């Protein structure tokens, strides 16, 4: 379908780019990205995807907007307090860009629902705040052969990596298993600087956009870490796909999804 005059103007700064053009913009408009978690990471990620004209955005989150979210979860506002995060996120996106269709899933991901959630999407963004969800998203994406962006933020630090089937290690290749419960503080206990979600979540949106466009290099096989105190980025090369990985290795031992015991970072838990 040809771009309308309004679309030509809205996306003009994309279309001008040699790497994007009208062709690339149409790829974005045809793309479907699922954002799991409408929080610190998912807010900027979903907003940049929406502004970029990613035509279908799914948002999965079971939580409601709490006052303590608003220091970093910029897709929600004060008027959204108490509202389902997926509803608040959808309203923000609809106001930003009418080209975007938003599908909302008011649920946390579990071994029961995740494969169905991800099946219709081209790329998945992990914007969750706990290890059980991160391992679940990884394993499901490996099994369903879906690319995804992992990220995590805490205090003044953030990290992200990208998994593309057959093109490098998965999250479990590197991190093996969730840490013991209570061994790692959640961001509720430890705190997190609000703009960290903006830095790392925007980088996740960038990974998704580049994957859709087929442009440049992704963080496959690399972990990008950011330390805001030292103001340092490090791009750490990861071991290549590990043959003995429990989920993506040659002889996987994990063949069914696992619901690890949840220690959810529900700040504002009532």
């Amino acid at each position: 379908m040809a771009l309308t005059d309004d679309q030509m103007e809205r996306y003009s700064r994309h279309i001008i780019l040699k790497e994007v053009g009208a062709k690339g913009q149409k790829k974005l408009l045809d793309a479907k990205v699922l954002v799991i978690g409408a929080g610190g990471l998912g807010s900027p990620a979903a907003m940049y995807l929406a502004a970029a004209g990613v035509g279908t955005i799914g948002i999965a989150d079971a939580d409601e907007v709490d006052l303590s979210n608003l220091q970093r979860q910029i897709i929600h506002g004060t008027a959204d307090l108490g509202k389902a995060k997926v509803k608040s996120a959808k309203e923000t996106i609809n106001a930003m860009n009418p080209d975007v269709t938003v599908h909302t899933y008011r649920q946390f991901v579990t071994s029961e629902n995740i494969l169905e959630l991800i099946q219709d999407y081209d790329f998945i963004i992990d914007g969750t705040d706990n290890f059980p969800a991160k391992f679940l998203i990884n394993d499901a994406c490996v099994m369903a052969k879906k690319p995804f962006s992992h990220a995590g933020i805490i205090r003044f630090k953030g990290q992200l990596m990208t998994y593309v089937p057959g093109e490098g290690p998965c999250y479990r290749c590197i991190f093996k298993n969730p840490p013991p419960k209570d061994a790692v503080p959640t961001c509720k206990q430890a705190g997190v600087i609000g703009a960290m979600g903006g830095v790392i979540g925007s980088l996740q949106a960038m990974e998704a956009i580049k994957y859709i466009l087929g442009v440049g290099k992704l963080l496959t096989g690399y972990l990008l870490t950011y330390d805001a105190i030292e103001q340092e980025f490090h791009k750490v090369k990861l071991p290549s796909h590990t043959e003995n990985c429990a989920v993506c290795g040659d002889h996987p031992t994990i063949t069914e999804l696992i619901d690890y015991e949840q220690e959810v970072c529900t700040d504002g838990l009532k």
Partner: protein
Amino acid sequence: MELAGIKIDETVDITDKVCPLTFVKAKVALEELEEGEILAIRMNDGEPVQNVPRSIKEEGHQILKLLDNSDGTYYLIVRKAED
């Protein structure tokens, strides 16, 4: 249509746009064409004539001619390069 002896496959009028949408509209029209096809772009004198040909050249397309229509507009005739 033929201009200055060149067979034109498609035309686009960008006189209704200002920078950078002049170039954007021309670029979108070029992307709709097949490699080797000829596009005639009608543009205003001044800023468009100064900038649009250069931007199109930077994209790798071949500029064949710039025709003065003597009414304050020009036709830029471009052969589309491969994607």
